[in-house]
């Protein structure tokens, strides 16, 4: 079993609460995305309705499903801090691994966990949607957007949280939340802009996801230059 696979399994064992919350949130997102089936047909177009419900509910649920993926993968970053404080990262460095190798292992573990949850939540969402008669094109759009936003967001949050916890002087990992704040920033335009430009929703969100992914990848590939080996010492 490779380093990232072991890291993934260790993360699952570290805190089951996050996984339960992640799954619960994805179920909540699914319910929210399909609730529009119960909204009377004329509500969406009613002049008295301040927002376009047909568009806003799916977009809101994309955000919730993406956040559930983030929640599901957070234990990986907690494990990173735990391993740093425990001297595990120091030992890994001494065996010949470098910063990039170590970061890659945790990022892969995080993205894999996020992928598992997104696959589950999209299958679940699509199945419920088909059962309730939600439009297939809407369900497909949601699946694409959830994957794109979810994966890019998890990538950026994971790498940011690990970078912040490595760079801080005190070894408690207290700067980790900064990574979450940075990581979810791209989600706001991904949520708001499709409401403003509904006909370009997919293009806008995919573009935001691609930019976020590229930024995250650039950060990962520069990690050896940005973070010295000594920053991974306990």
């Amino acid at each position, binding site marked *: *079993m*490779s*380093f990232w696979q*072991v890291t993934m399994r*260790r993360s699952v*064992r*570290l805190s089951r609460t996050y996984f339960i919350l992640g799954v619960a949130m994805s179920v909540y997102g699914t319910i929210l995305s399909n609730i529009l089936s119960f909204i009377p047909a004329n509500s969406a177009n009613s002049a008295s309705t301040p927002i376009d419900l047909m568009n806003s509910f799916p977009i809101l649920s994309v955000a919730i499903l993406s956040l559930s993926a983030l929640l599901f993968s957070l234990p990986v970053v907690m494990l990173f801090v735990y*391993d740093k404080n*425990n*001297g*595990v990262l*120091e*030992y*890994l*460095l*001494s*065996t*010949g*691994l*470098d910063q990039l190798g170590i970061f890659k292992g945790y990022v892969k573990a995080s993205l894999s966990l996020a992928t598992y949850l997104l696959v589950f939540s999209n299958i679940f969402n699509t199945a419920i949607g088909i059962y309730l008669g939600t439009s297939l094109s809407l369900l497909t759009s949601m699946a694409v957007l959830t994957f794109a936003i979810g994966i890019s967001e998890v990538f950026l949050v994971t790498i940011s949280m690990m970078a912040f916890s490595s760079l801080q002087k005190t070894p408690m990992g207290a700067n980790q939340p900064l990574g979450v704040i940075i990581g979810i920033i791209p989600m706001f335009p991904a949520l708001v802009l499709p409401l403003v430009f509904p006909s370009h929703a997919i293009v806008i969100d995919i573009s935001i996801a691609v930019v976020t992914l590229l930024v995250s990848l650039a950060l990962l590939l520069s990690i050896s230059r940005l973070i*010295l*080996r*000594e920053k991974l*010492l*306990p």
Partner: protein
Amino acid sequence: MQKLELHEVSAGYGVEEVIHRISLKIIEPSIYVVLGPNGAGKTTLFRTICGILKPFSGQAKWDGVDLFNSKEARRRIAYLSHLNALPEEMTVFNALKYYADIEGGDVEHVLDLLSLSELRDRKFSSLSQGQKKRVSVGKILLRERDLYLLDEPTSNVDPKISKEIRDILIKLSKDKFVLYSSHNLYEAREIGTYLILIKDGELKFFDKIENVKTRQYRVGIKTLNDVSKLLPESKFENGYYVVTADSPREVAKIVNHLVQGGAELVELRELDNPLQEFFEE
């Protein structure tokens, strides 16, 4: 011939230089005790040798290859830090397998070697300090290396486990290089062939321990009869006649003098460790 070579190595953390222009060459497999007070730079020296810290200046090389830049060279080195560095939530077997999967090695062999078989399914976090240390030592024995760096491996463990660890290292040192840091002067004398003394980040002494010269010896002599007249210069402390000599040869002369004077000797013990001076200077 394999060797560790440090040439004018200065290293530290951020902008703070901890070790200054250290040069040494190690060519003979043996145990090298790295001695120094807290904060002297022992851990920094080890981290530099195993390639974690990049020297501010100078070079650390193994077999002529720069240790910071060569993964292959670093793979020839094992580093045991003062932390256990094992995933606490895993069982002993899985914790060792975790590293074996990353860097290779034989877990079963280590479990046998360190008599850890009965602990294999115990959670690492549930072990005693001594057991944890044994497992921690186990991880650096998973596969063969040429150079072993051990940062205070016997701190916080009982004498029995300390001895077990020392015995393993003595066995290893027959054909491997072992650098062993310690605060314990008696342990240093017992286990080490060479002494590397680090103080204030500088190399103060590097030679065979037997070549350590001391200014004076304080020796305690226990006898069955009163020898105060034979040793008028001595002080009687805690059942011992304490005498001060300039050299081991002078101690031999005193003993000879006592025996010829009819003293019934029970015990002769060195009261100060010659290495003590390094800490006092």
